[in-house]
Each structure stands twice: as C-alpha cells, then as structure tokens.
C-alpha cells in the first residue's frame, strides 16, 4: 500500500465520522435498558421492536405523508419554475442584467433572516398550516436556476434554431429539446429540492399549527419533547427518517455535489 500514513489518518477520520451513525443504529436495535452502564459496544440480541413501536407511539404515517406531499410539490415546482426561468435567462431581453442582479442579491439573503416577515406574509396569504404554505418559499431556487441556465447554454444554438424553424413553440423547445439534453441538471434539481424540503425544520415549525400538518422533522422534535431520550424507539425513528435522505444521497452523490459546488462557485 502506498502512503500508509495518509491511509491511517483517513481511516481515523472516517471512523470518527461514522461512529455516531453506528451508535444510534446500535441503540435503535437494542432491546435492553439503553441506560445500562457500561454500555455494550455491540448490540445484544438485536431486534426490530423499536421500529414497530414508532408506528404505535406517534402518527408516523401522517408525518410521512405530509413530508412526502411537501417534498413532491417542492420537487415539481423546482423543476418547472426553474427550467422556464432559466430558459428565459438564456434569451436576450430588456432588463436581463437587472434580473440577474436581483437573483444574485437574493442569494445573499439567508432564508432564516426572513422568518418574521415571511410568517406575516404567509399569514396574509391565508396559507398558514397548509401544504402550499409549507412548500411556497422553496418552490423555486436560485442555485438551481443557474444550474439549468448553464446546462441550457451548452446546448448547441443550431439545434434550438432548427427546432424553431420547424415550428416548435417555446414550451416544446424546453420540453423536447433542452430538457432531454440536460439530464444531469434535472438530477441535480431533483436531489437538491428533495433534500432541502425533506430536511426543512424551521419553516414548518413556524407555520404549522397542529399535528395533522406536521412533517417528519417536527415529528422527531415532538417525540423528543414527549419522551426525552428515554426510549430506543426515538433512535429507531431517527434511523427511519435518515434512511431516505442517505439513500437519495448515495444514489445521486455526483449530482448532489455538482449542484452544491456549482451553486457555490456561482457566488
């Protein structure tokens, strides 16, 4: 093996990064008193009861449904709105520079810095405690518009002109010419929109009022405040909530990283 020291360092780093995952999975499948000291490093007689408990202790299916609905709305919204906005930005029009400037300055405003007025605005729109209200602020994302824009710009002009001469309207140019040639950008959009919406906590915390509209992260927080850290079911819940995010990330890692770094290098 070349570079034994580098490998040794990276193995130590990897173990440190992975240990918390191991510890929570171990606790989730352990049956006995989770407070036993000294703790067993390996799970003794592992079992799935904690995962079953989650379905009975909390309205897990309801949280899951809400999370899925909000994520689906967000992903579809991002695909459609970002694609058409990006296409418009590849065309020449009066005020194009002003629009670009507006988008870039919006990128510097963190969403958390807008919560008080954003709550008041959503309240005036009558969208508190609704799926649309949960998804609306995330329905279009500036980073993703720029990812689509650079993908569209790399499609040869001649192809678009040929499509236009053949009489295709702008909608069809997007749907039939540009999008099929921008698969990586689509993947990036889907992955980023899904992960952002799936993980989102502060916004749902502010605008949902009752358990029937709450998403999984809120379910977790609620479970934590009811039970404190006293039951293995809490950690089973954590594992169940993390699994989809980890799966999506591992399947689409390159799309995710490309999106984040593209967004980062765009300022």
């Amino acid at each position: 093996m070349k570079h034994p020291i580098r490998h040794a360092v990276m193995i130590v780093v990897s173990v440190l990064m992975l240990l918390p995952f191991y510890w929570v999975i171990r606790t989730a499948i352990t049956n006995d008193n989770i407070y036993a000291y000294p703790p067993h490093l390996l799970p003794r007689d592992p079992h799935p009861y904690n995962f079953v408990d989650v379905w009975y202790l909390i309205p897990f299916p309801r949280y899951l449904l809400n999370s899925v609905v909000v994520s689906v709305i967000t992903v579809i919204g991002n695909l459609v709105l970002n694609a058409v906005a990006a296409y418009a930005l590849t065309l020449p029009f009066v005020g194009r520079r002003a629009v670009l400037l507006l988008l870039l300055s919006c990128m510097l405003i963190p969403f958390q810095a807008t919560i008080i007025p954003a709550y008041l605005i959503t309240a005036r729109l009558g969208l508190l405690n609704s799926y649309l209200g949960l998804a609306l602020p995330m329905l279009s994302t500036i980073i993703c518009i720029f990812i689509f824009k650079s993908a569209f710009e790399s499609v040869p002009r001649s192809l678009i002109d040929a499509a236009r001469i053949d009489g295709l309207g702008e909608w069809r140019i997007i749907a039939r010419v540009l999008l099929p040639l921008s698969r990586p950008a689509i993947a990036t959009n889907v992955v980023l929109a899904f992960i952002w919406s799936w993980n989102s906590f502060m916004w749902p915390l502010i605008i949902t009022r009752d358990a029937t509209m709450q998403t999984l992260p809120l379910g977790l927080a609620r479970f934590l405040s009811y039970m404190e850290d006293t039951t293995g079911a809490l950690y089973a819940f954590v594992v169940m909530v993390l699994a989809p995010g980890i799966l999506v990330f591992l399947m689409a890692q390159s799309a995710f990283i490309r999106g984040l770094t593209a967004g980062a290098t765009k300022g």
Partner: protein
Amino acid sequence: MTPSALLRPLPPGEGRGEGDTARPSPNPLPKGEGFLGRRRTRQSALIACFLLPSLAIFVLYRILPLFWNVVLSFQSWSPTRPAHFVGWDNYQDLWSYDDVFWQALTNTAIWIAAAPIAIILALAIALLVNSDLRGAAVYRTIVFLSYPLMTVAVGIIWRWMYDERGGLINWALRSAHLIDKPLGFLGSFDLALPSVLLTDIWQVIGFYMIVLLTGLQSIPPHLYEAARVDGVPAWARFLRITLPLLRPSLFLCAVIGLLNSFTSFDLVYIMTNGGPGHATELLITYIYKLGFGQTRFDAAAAVTVVQFLLLLVLTFLANRAAGGNAGAIEH
C-alpha cells in the same frame, strides 16, 4: 417552412452577456409594429411569463422580508394594535437592557470564529483525499455523508452521544480514565457551547472539504511540475501555489461559515434550545424566541437586522481578504 422564421430579426442567444440591452436593434421597423415587431412582443410576453413565478417567490420571500424587517425594527408592533413608528427604541432596548441579546451576540461571534478551525481541518482532509490515494472516493463519501442529513436527526444522535449514561463519549473518556464521573456536556454552562459547536463542525466539515477539493482540482498540475523541476520544497509549493490559487474556494468556505450562524438554528433548538440558561443562545434562536415565543416581532426584527448587518460586513471583509473579486459571478 415559413418565410417569417427565416426573417427572424435577432437569433436568441447571439447577444448574450453584457450590453445586449443597449445594442441597437437590427430590426429596421419600429418596435411593436409590423410582423417582426409583433413576434418580438410575443416573445417578450413569453419571457415575462417564464420569469414571473420565480421572481414573485423571490420578491415575496427574500426582498420584501428584507425591507419589512427594517421597517418593523423601527416600529412598535403587537398583534392587537396597529403598528406605529418608534424610531430607535427597539435597538436602544437591545443595546441597554437586553443581556440575552449580548450573550447571543457573543455566542454567535464564537460560532463564526470557530469556522476557520473547521475550514483548516477540512483543508487538511481535502489535501489528503486529493492525492493519488487509493480509495479516495470512499473517504470523500464518508466525510461528506453527514452534510445532507436532517439536522434535527443529527441533533438527536449527538444528544445521545453526549449522554451521561448511554453516551459513547462519556464511556470512552471514562474507560480511558480521563474522567472519574460522567460529564453532563449539554447541561454544563462551560461545555454546552463547545459541545454543540463540535456537532456542527462534524456536520459541515464535509461541505467545506468538497468546496476545497473542487478548488484544488482546478489548479493546473503543470504549475506543481514546474515548481518541482525547479527544486521548490513541498511546503513552499503549498504556500506559493496552493494557498493563493485556493483563495476563491477559501472565500466561499468563509461565506458558508458565516451563513452557518443562521442555519444552525435546527441544531441548537434540538440539542439545548439555547440552554442551560442562555449558554448556547445564538442570535437566530433568540430571534425565534422573541418572535414566536413572546410575540415581540418588532424586537425580533431588530435582532435580525443586527445579525444581517454583521454578516454583510464580515462577508465584505472576507471578500477583501480574498482579493476583492472572489465572489464574482458570470465570469
């Protein structure tokens, strides 16, 4: 094929980039008249339709809130009475009477000051993973894995890691005979902030690493070869080639670190909710408590303005340190 398609005045995309709005139109007809003009008006309408939904969302949820925050911070607001202008009162209250505000401001400053430590660690990992190391992709995935995870779940995982009886950290420290009694990390006034910070670093370090890796990979290898031929030692190659060319990436990491003081709300809320006392209170958790705990939207808006200004100034300074145009976009 219709002749109109061939006569189309301005192929889209040809005038891309700067100055396309100022360029004189090749269309001899006045705007809006005749067939060509009509086609153009139609296209403008379409562009507007394409841009409008996204722009509406950004105006509604970014621009408008920014200004509303400023207005609100100069008003006295309550859900029952109409708002009225009170000048600097909200800021004066924060400055003179609000100890929690000062504590939160200090903690936020510590939070931001810890970012360079994480960035240096991430740079070390990025340098290790960037070399011709076998299995570098696996290491990269492992280090990055914690970043896209739900922060609420990460907070719960780490509460458990820090637990006095069931936690791995206390067990490890006790087994190594470094401590006699278990430490209540998250319940201690001294240890709570560093403990939550450590979790935050664990989660974001992978993102810093990825940004720095992208920067490292964009450095042309022939620079290193030329330096090696000239007999420049490794440390000098790092100082003279790597670091200067990595400036834009380091600037981005700094910006991410600054924004992190806003986005860490989830983690602090779950792990300590600002406690014990206000030992881990950040400005953003205080904004939430003022706004949605005490319904003092005016005071919350004032704190938001303070934090936003702090970020703007620090971003400006980081940009200056990185050479002035590190954040330049659109080439």
